[in-house]
């Protein structure tokens, strides 16, 4: 029973893994949160789980990276660095693992080299294991991360993204692994990233075997999703064929799209004589007992559609995108079209676009294109900017074959050959002037930012500033339980909310009455540590601050038909596609908006001339905010 403690040198970690008789488990808490709870599991819950998880003796706890950095600041209002600090205090011996999207870091688009290196350096102070992937399996896209991780003395875990289909052969993946090892050296862990939970157990067993045959000294980490309910089978085959580490999660929170329960893995593999190295089963059970009651407060973030989705083998959506895709379908009112989108259009688009790996940001391109193809009726009629970039090769070369020419023509226009010649190729993102960015942030915050604040700003400029201002105003809110933080419908008078603040002090807030004055203001009375406080809310602030649409969805559509184009949802302007004075026709794209990972074109509902533009690139709009005005051509 060899437990690997945080702080162990990389060479020694890899050596221990090479000599391991049993297998190790990574508690994939972050991926569970992302796949089954829209990334909302709060630090509060992770801190509750921390003592038992620390004793459980995992290879690592995957607790940061992926979309979590963005959601931490956008929806959980917690600083991702503070989160790692607090967890480190509670879990000194457990290695922390991240999921990094190579050049796309924790976002959706390539970052400049200096931003990548700066970001990795700062996070590497807390993160011991770096699982890095590229959705095109284009190794150069991961180089900068590999180098900075190695420099920081932390463990590189490069991924080969896995998918199924005639091109996805063992030979291809073995060669890809060779390409990676050539640049990283052999003191790594190699990850088979099965983000969709694709393939049969036998298929995974074969792949692991082929890789082990070729690289017997490289420890393999199998990462999967339980979307089809069969990841346990794949894990068993992976370990039987030589994988050294596998991913699983705490049973109290396991759902349909994330990893399967740890205990099920351990119990099943025991039958075959495999021992989970360093693992304290009692502590694994205890973790779930400690956090089980918290799950009810996350109910609103669980999938709209309950049950496993064995059809993932057809549509191949990654587990991490299932929740957000279904949410988008639900909010967009096209849940009824999901069978068409998932089972017909997505596989078709997937094949047409080169059968690459459906994972961020590539999965969003496939999804958005499929949705647009079905909803708008015209296939590839409203291509997103990201789809254009994909065809231009900005993300990297297509791994197996290029899309058909008609798609290029549809997406890039009639002169697509010229466009491809002039603009094609892997995007070289110019380095940013970090001193200037720091200055800009200081201007917005009114104080000199720390390196960590600057990094958050470089990832998500608008959202980071909003978050830092939030933190200044409301404090460090991770101390609030999900029962309070996600509470809906208002509290009852007399409810007592007890919590311990960031400094560790105990507090009690009791809910008092909320009378409304003649002028319409509401005063909320709270008894804070036995002393009464009141907070006054003006009615007009309610609408804008709560982010609720002043206009209904129908009203927004009606206005658009009259030429008053407004934001149909909350999101950022990626592009204003029309100029003032330009003539536009119904169906023309006038803007692109983005919410979370999804880009949505804003289409003209009335022909005419653009007479005023109210929003610009980068603006964060609320539903009903003005974008531009079209007047009838006279």
């Amino acid at each position, binding site marked *: 029973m060899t437990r690997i403690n945080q702080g162990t040198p990389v060479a020694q970690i890899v050596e221990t893994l090479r000599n391991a008789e049993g297998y190790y488990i990574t508690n994939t808490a972050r991926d569970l949160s992302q796949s089954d709870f829209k990334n909302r599991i709060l630090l509060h819950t992770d801190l509750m789980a921390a003592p038992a998880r620390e004793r459980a003796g995992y290879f690592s706890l995957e607790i940061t990276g992926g979309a979590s950095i963005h959601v931490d600041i956008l929806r959980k209002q917690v600083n991702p660095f503070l989160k790692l600090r607090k967890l480190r205090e509670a879990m000194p011996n457990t290695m922390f693992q991240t999921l990094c999207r190579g050049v796309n870091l924790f976002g959706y688009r390539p970052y400049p080299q200096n931003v990548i290196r700066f970001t990795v350096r700062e996070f590497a102070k807390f993160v011991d294991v770096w699982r890095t992937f590229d959705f095109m399996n284009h190794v150069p896209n991961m180089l900068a991360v590999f180098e900075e991780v190695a420099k920081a003395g932390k463990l590189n875990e490069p991924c080969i993204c896995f998918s199924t289909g005639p091109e996805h052969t063992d030979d291809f993946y073995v060669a890809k692994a060779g390409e990676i090892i050539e640049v990283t050296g052999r003191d790594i862990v190699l990850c088979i990233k099965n983000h969709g939970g694709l393939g049969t157990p036998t298929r995974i067993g074969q792949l692991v075997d082929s890789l082990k045959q070729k690289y017997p000294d490289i420890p393999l980490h199998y990462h999967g999703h339980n979307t089809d309910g069969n990841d346990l089978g794949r894990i068993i085959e992976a370990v039987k064929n030589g994988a050294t580490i596998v991913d699983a999660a705490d049973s109290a929170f396991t759902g349909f799209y994330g990893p399967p329960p740890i205990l099920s893995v351990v119990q099943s593999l025991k039958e075959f004589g495999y021992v989970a190295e360093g693992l304290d089963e009692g502590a694994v059970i205890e973790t779930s007992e400690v956090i089980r009651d918290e799950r009810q407060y996350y109910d609103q973030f669980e999938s709209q559609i309950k049950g496993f989705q064995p059809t993932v083998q057809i549509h191949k959506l990654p587990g991490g995108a299932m929740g957000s895709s279904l949410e988008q379908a639900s909010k967009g009112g096209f849940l009824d079209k999901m069978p068409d989108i998932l089972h017909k259009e997505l596989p078709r688009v997937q094949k047409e676009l080169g059968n690459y790996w459906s994972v961020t940001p590539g999965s969003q391109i496939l999804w958005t294109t499929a949705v647009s193809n079905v909803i708008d009726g015209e296939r590839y009629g409203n291509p997103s900017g990201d789809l254009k970039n994909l065809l231009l090769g900005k993300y990297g070369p297509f791994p197996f074959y290029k899309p058909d020419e008609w798609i290029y023509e549809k997406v890039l226009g009639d002169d697509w050959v010229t466009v491809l010649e002039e603009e094609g190729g892997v995007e070289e993102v110019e380095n940013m002037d970090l001193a200037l960015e720091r200055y800009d942030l200081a201007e917005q915050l009114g104080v000199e930012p720390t390196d960590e604040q600057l990094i958050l700003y470089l990832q998500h400029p608008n959202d980071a500033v909003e978050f830092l201002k939030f933190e200044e105003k409301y404090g460090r809110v991770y101390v*609030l339980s999900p029962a309070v933080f996600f509470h809906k419908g208002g509290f009852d008078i007399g409810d007592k909310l007890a*919590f311990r603040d960031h400094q560790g002090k105990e507090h009690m807030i009791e809910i008092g009455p909320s009378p409304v004055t003649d002028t319409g203001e509401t005063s909320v009375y*709270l008894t804070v540590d036995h002393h009464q406080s009141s907070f006054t809310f003006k009615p007009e602030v309610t609408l804008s601050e709560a982010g609720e649409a002043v206009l209904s969805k129908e009203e927004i559509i009606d206005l658009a038909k009259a030429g008053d184009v407004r934001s149909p949802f909350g999101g950022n302007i990626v592009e204003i596609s029309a100029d003032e004075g330009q003539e536009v026709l119904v169906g023309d794209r006038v803007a692109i908006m983005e919410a979370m990972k999804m880009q949505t074109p804003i289409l003209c509902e009335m022909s005419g001339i653009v007479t005023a533009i109210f929003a610009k690139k980068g603006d964060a709009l609320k539903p009903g905010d003005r974008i531009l005005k079209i007047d009838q051509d006279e």
Partner: protein
Amino acid sequence: MKKKILVANRGEIAIRLIRAIQELGHAAVAVYETPDEMSRHIRIADEAILLGDGPRSDYLNIEKIIWAAKKTGAIAVHPGYGFLAENPFFAKACEMEDIIFIGPSSEIITNLGNKVTARKIMSDAGIPMVPGTPNLSQGKEGVEEALTFGSEYGYPVMLKATCGGGGRGIRRIENDQEMVGQIPMARSEALAAFNDDSVYLEKVVLNPKHVEVQILADSHGNTLHLGTRDCSIQRRNQKLVEIAPSMIEDQGLLDKICETAVQAAEASNYFNAGTVEFLLDSDFNYYFLEINTRVQVEHTVTEMITGIDIVRNQINLAFGNPLSFTQEDVKPRGHAIEVRINAEDPKNDFMPEGGKQVSVYRSTGGFGVRLDGFVYQGYVIPEVYDSLLVKLTVHGFTWDETVGRLRRCLQNFAIRGPKTTIPFYENIASEKDFLSGNFDTSYIDTHPHIFLYDEDSSEVGKLARLIAEIHYRKENPYAA
């Protein structure tokens, strides 16, 4: 017999005086201006009388105060500190109207209030003085006198308004050129502020300690002292932190300073409570600075270590009673520290937070803790009066214990609404020179890091705001 005593002041000192008056079995009469009509001192007093709309002007109006005393039948007036406390005309007016002025006579206030007269009395009595000039002559002649003094004693020197006090009307002069330029400005400023353009010079004692001695004198020829205080931690000559006794280890020197203070009081025929202030240089020479003829803000630290109620004694002495104890009965024990918790932003040059409301006020308590406050939950920081919320005085057996208590007490406070000086004091209470009792008047300038702190170190108020919002909006708008 129950007597009525009028408290001619507002704020925490009014409450302090009312408490002593009531403890003696007398009745306290409060006065107030309209902006103070919600203030605590009115509620605590036995009766209260409106002076006018003010602001400030009615608290400074001698005629109105005398009117109020007569109207309410008060036989005595306590002026507190500030406002009319050291105005000899007020003391004189009381004397004329047969109202007992709780403090020294108008003559003593006049003599000691005039810096030059005071210096003459003290130097005649052999009290060590900082080298200085008499009032400078008017015009060119005065400038010549000043330049001669500058060349004789060397720069820097202090140019002081003869009638100034409390840190006002003082300028530091670094060279001849500044001297020539500053004298006319100092004169016009003094004329505007004190209605007297007299100025004089004093040599600057570099980075001195500010040590003062509390004096009590009865009308039967007895004068005694209640030991020393150190008020070295100042900014621009305004005291911030006061302690008792002085941290100087040489007890012989402290005894000598106290004896000198008694001599100084006797030389001026002092009566009632007063404070003799000294500067102590790095070679342990001490110089007379001035005598304050009032109860001081920092009197609480002396009360804590001696157990003697200074205000109670002031009243008794004013009524003609002899001191009820001797010098031998005064046995200071332990250490005391007082800090003035103000609604001010130390980072912004101690800018007062006038107009802001205290939405949450929680104070401290426990062993060795004393609060002299005016603030309450809901209190609005006045824009027209001072921004003092509460004075915190802690007492401990040892210095370490006392500083630890100060730190603990500061952490106990929860004040929401205005910025306060609490985090600034917390930094001082954790600073190593302060912990070792090693500080002089340069302390604030030489320890700039005490200004570095998080604005709001306690987070419960911020979190309460979010909870209020989650409650009001029926969901968390920042988590949707």
